[in-house]
């Protein structure tokens, strides 16, 4: 049985201009110890899918799914209180912009300790020693001195490490990383991805990486879901996807990579409009 199983998930937002369907029936499943990448452009609904599963969407969103199970527990029928016991403990999430998602008013040590206190009921002293342990495990060397530091005093890469420490504080069984390296330099990106992969291996977590960067997918994923405008285009093992993409959209996306450029011009997704419409995909705001 898979760790996370979602079937036919749809999300609709009420907007001033009428209902907007952000997700139109997608399926995901992740096993323990597996790395799933969800790839898509902005507006493809990749973040919305994970937020709906965590119950973090605003009230204007209507979430429907045939199945939404984590480790056999039905996430839909849970009360908010029950769900909160799972979320943050067994399922945790790393957000895109580390600088913006840490609270600027509290020290790093406090923010990591918060999760430990809430979910595991540790005492202040236990919290402190566990926080130091966590900071060490995410590669922050002078952990004792770092506890009292505020987010603005650290670099983006350091903040992201703190976010990761917070997310793995309660040894989650499923970790969701939403664009974990988009705001970072390539050298820091490499360090953060290596860190995520080694933690994933150590804790045997299920890991979902949400990204628009094909390079990140190539470096991390076991299995990949490609998404466009709220619809799942293709699901494949990572090697199959790069070697032999089945769907026209995946082909278009891969050919837009600058390293795959043949000749002077980069093909864009719009250049594949004909193949895509044959595959039943209508491009949004099509423009050359």
């Amino acid at each position, binding site marked *: 049985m898979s760790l996370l199983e979602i079937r036919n998930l749809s999300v609709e937002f009420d907007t001033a201009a009428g209902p907007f369907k952000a997700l139109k029936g997608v399926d995901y499943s992740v096993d323990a*110890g597996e790395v799933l990448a969800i790839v898509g*452009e*902005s507006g493809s609904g990749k973040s919305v899918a994970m937020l709906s599963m965590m119950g973090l969407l605003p009230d204007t969103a209507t979430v429907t799914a045939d199945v939404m199970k984590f480790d056999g527990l039905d996430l839909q029928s849970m009360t908010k209180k029950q769900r909160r016991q799972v979320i943050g403990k067994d399922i945790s999430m790393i957000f895109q912009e580390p600088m913006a998602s840490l609270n600027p008013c509290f020290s790093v040590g406090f923010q990591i300790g918060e999760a430990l206190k809430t979910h595991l009921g540790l005492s202040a002293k236990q919290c402190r020693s566990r926080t130091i342990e966590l900071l060490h495990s995410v590669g922050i060397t002078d952990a004792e001195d770092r506890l009292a530091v505020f987010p603005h005093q650290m670099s*983006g890469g350091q903040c992201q490490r703190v976010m990761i420490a917070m997310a793995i504080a309660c040894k989650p069984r499923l970790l969701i990383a939403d664009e974990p390296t988009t705001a970072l*330099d*390539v*050298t*820091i*990106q*490499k360090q953060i*991805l290596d860190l995520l992969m080694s933690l994933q*291996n150590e804790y045997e977590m299920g890991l979902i990486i949400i990204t*628009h*960067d*094909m*390079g*990140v*997918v*190539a*470096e991390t994923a*076991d299995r990949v879901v490609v998404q466009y405008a709220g619809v799942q285009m293709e699901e494949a*093992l*990572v*090697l199959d996807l*790069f*070697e032999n993409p089945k769907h026209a959209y995946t082909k*278009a*996306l891969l050919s*837009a*990579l*600058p*390293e795959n*450029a043949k000749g*002077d*011009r*980069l*093909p*864009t*997704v*719009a250049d594949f409009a004909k193949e895509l419409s044959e595959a039943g995909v209508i491009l949004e*705001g099509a*423009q*050359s």
Partner: protein
Amino acid sequence: MTQKAPIMRVKDVTREYITGGGLFSKSKSLMALKGINFDLIEGETLAIVGESGCGKSTLARILTMIDAPTDGVLEIEGRQVDISKKRPDADLRSKIQIVFQNPYGSLNPRQKVGDVLEEPLIINTNMGTDERRRLAFAMLEKVGLKPEHYGRYPHMFSGGQRQRIAIARSLMLRPKLLVLDEPVSALDLSVQAQILNLLADLQDEFKLTYIFISHDLSVVRYIADRVMVMYFGEIVEFGAKDDVFDNPQHDYTKTLFAATPKSDVESIRARVEARAAAN
């Protein structure tokens, strides 16, 4: 190409930032640029690569005459420029323009696209209203936007379209040199491809010289003629693209290449197999 005179010459440029120095604390100085030297050849694309904090954006500010260097000489078409003594005149301003990284932050939300495009003309030329309008419409078409976009506000556009507007604005004065500060790093992959194609077309049409600042090596490899790698305010590697990519000399350049994700099938196969063996 090597026979041409350099369009820009940078000699021993340094830039020092003084921070702190309040009532009780001593001021600290930070050397953001430690002696930068290079010539820029007309019509080429020079890529500047480096991590955040290495001084690429400081250099861009100096080259575009937004900021004055602490020391050193900046020559544009053989003419020495020192903006700390004399503000650059309209003629000089028209030669160099810049496109910023974040298309969401670099456009005034209360200015219509038409006004965005006409502002450089109002400031730097004596052109009449009709003429400005005509040029703005022509430029919208050149960057792949439509005439009806003239009266719209920036928030009505997607990221890629906004970057087209920013590029259009930078071209209104018909510059010779365009400094592109991470122009595609905030964009999706397929939009990135469109903007890169647009930049290539515009370079041909307007005979532009580009300084392309980026930390994405796959983009640099695609677009650059020459590559300059910066590390802590210094140039650590400088050469033709193929030389730098095929045979990097400096340790930092090697680190940079090693850190770039590899998306070719062989690398993925190797990684997947290593992972399967470990479990």
